[in-house]
């Protein structure tokens, strides 16, 4: 029975390990090594410069500008997305009438759930291109065309409100995912708990804040971490929606786009790698903090 066991184990592992090592693990190791050099694509020679690149990053205004944009997304994206998703999933699961003592969802809740989730299956790039037209600067943009009908002057969404416009798209795409996630969590909360609260005369609003949110706390925390990590990306949207891919004047720049421009377009490999390391450190710091901060005694049901 043990015959052929070891060759089998090795045979099944060798290709995945090889691929993963070449294209994931080795580049990660290289990232750190290159970030300590002054390598630029122009010459094959480069010297070890220690932490010089990181010093440059700390004094680079472009980087700080991008970090501010990530901070904006980091705060606003989870806050708005989770609030909307909680509200919608509560309505979908418990906003309707009471049937045999149990609250039911509003009429048509299945339809809403299907529609809300739809943006999630679309590529971010495609969503970005569509919203490029939604935010069009003149009558050709959907929003400005609608505003024009109300005699409002055209709003320069991408030129003046770039980051907020991008935030809007991220929220638009994300809400449905968390509606489905929270709905699954709400469905697993036993009906008797609600029944008891309703018999005690609790209103829906009280039920929402006193029962639903505490019992969903773990799921909400996971959502917070996921959305926070999303806030460090935004590459595709900035690339296809904004003026000059991160402009005007760096007003919509984000770190992944800086890495792409420095590393692949300008061939400033050393500096771009250092930016990559910095972005990684930011992401990991956030994830660690977020996982610690929200921890509290879990409620059992």
């Amino acid at each position, binding site marked *: *029975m043990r015959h*052929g066991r070891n060759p*089998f184990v090795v045979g*099944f*592992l060798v290709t*995945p*390990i090889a*691929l*993963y090592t*070449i*294209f*994931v*693990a080795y580049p*990660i190791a290289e*990232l750190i090594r*290159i970030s300590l050099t002054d390598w630029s694509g122009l010459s094959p020679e480069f010297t070890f410069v220690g932490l010089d690149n990181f010093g440059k990053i700390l004094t680079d205004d472009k980087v700080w500008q991008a970090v501010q944009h990530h901070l904006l997304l980091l705060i606003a994206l989870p806050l708005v997305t989770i609030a909307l998703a909680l509200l*919608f999933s509560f*309505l979908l699961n418990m*906003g309707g*009438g009471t049937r045999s003592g149990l609250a039911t969802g*509003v*009429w048509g809740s299945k339809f*809403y759930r*299907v529609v*809300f989730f*739809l943006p999630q*299956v*679309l*590529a*971010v*790039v*495609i969503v970005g*291109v*569509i*919203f*490029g*037209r939604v935010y069009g600067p003149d009558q*050709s943009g*959907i929003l400005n065309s*609608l505003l024009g009908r109300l005699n409002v002057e055209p709003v320069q969404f991408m030129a003046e409100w770039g980051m907020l416009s991008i935030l809007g798209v991220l929220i*638009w795409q994300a*809400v449905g995912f968390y509606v*489905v*996630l929270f709905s699954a969590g709400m469905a697993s909360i036993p009906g008797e708990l609600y029944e008891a609260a309703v018999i005690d005369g609790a209103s*829906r609003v009280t039920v929402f804040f006193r029962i639903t949110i505490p019992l969903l706390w773990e799921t909400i925390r996971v*959502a917070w971490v*996921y959305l926070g990590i999303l806030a460090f*990306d935004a590459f*595709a949207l900035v690339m296809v929606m904004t003026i000059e891919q991160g402009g005007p004047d760096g007003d919509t720049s984000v770190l*992944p786009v800086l*890495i*792409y421009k420095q590393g*692949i377009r300008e061939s400033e*490999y050393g500096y771009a*790698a250092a930016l*990559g*390391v910095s*972005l*990684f450190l930011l*992401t990991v710091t956030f994830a660690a903090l977020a996982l610690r901060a929200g921890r509290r005694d879990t409620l059992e049901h």
Partner: protein
Amino acid sequence: MSVKKDVKLLAGAGHVMLAMWALMVIGPLLFTFIASFKSNTEIFLGNPFALPATWDFGAFGRAWREAHIGTYFLNSVIVVGVSTFGTMLLGSMAAYVLARYQFRFNRAIYYYFVAGLAFPVYVVLTPLYLVVQAAGLLGTHTGLILVYIAYSLPFTIFFLAAFFKTLPNAVAEAALIDGASHTKLFFRVMLPMAKPGLVSITIFNLIGQWNQYVLPVALLQGEGAESKWVLTQGIADISTSAGYEADWAALFAALTIAIIPMVAVYAFFQRQIQSGLTAGAVK
């Protein structure tokens, strides 16, 4: 009675909010669809949600041939088809061995793979580009496919290893006693038993790789790479050139061509897709 009133009010306000969000979700997509049949004048000056005066299908032909959406679409199908298949094959093989066989370094190898989850692709973009360049795979589908597989392995292995652990031992032991080889046991017995998990994670990888943008942009470039581009890249390119070529209908037609298959697949498999995509967050 107050509870009843409460419910009615909430249900009323709730319906308004839900309907508004549904409109906001459908609105831009509906606009895109309608605009692909319109003339430039209608797109620019008309009501964005008005129907076109005449339904002109010409933009679809222009998008498919002149803007090469047909080529990009086919490229996406080839790349994602091969890479999802490769991801599932290699990922399930590694996950199975790591979940059900004890050997030295088992845990070390498992964590080696799972550690990859901490590194988003855009962080390692520069060295990855250099590795692919050194391997002579820049601007090739082979390179992109191998990279897709490599970056999909951590989550696939993480998810499937947990799944394979839950499968009962009795069946596996019986098959081995009957003289089945380990390989046969895996393909004939264990894989079919793991079907629910495989379906979820296949959908997850399929959608993720189909929608991938940063990797093709970084890796499919250089001379002659345009004929290799995938759909997301092609759409992004058309959107920048639509302005000066003044063929907006073709851009919207291209978007429609890219959206319709996703919407259709989603309509048929929405339950599996929802559980497949949320699988990551539940774990």
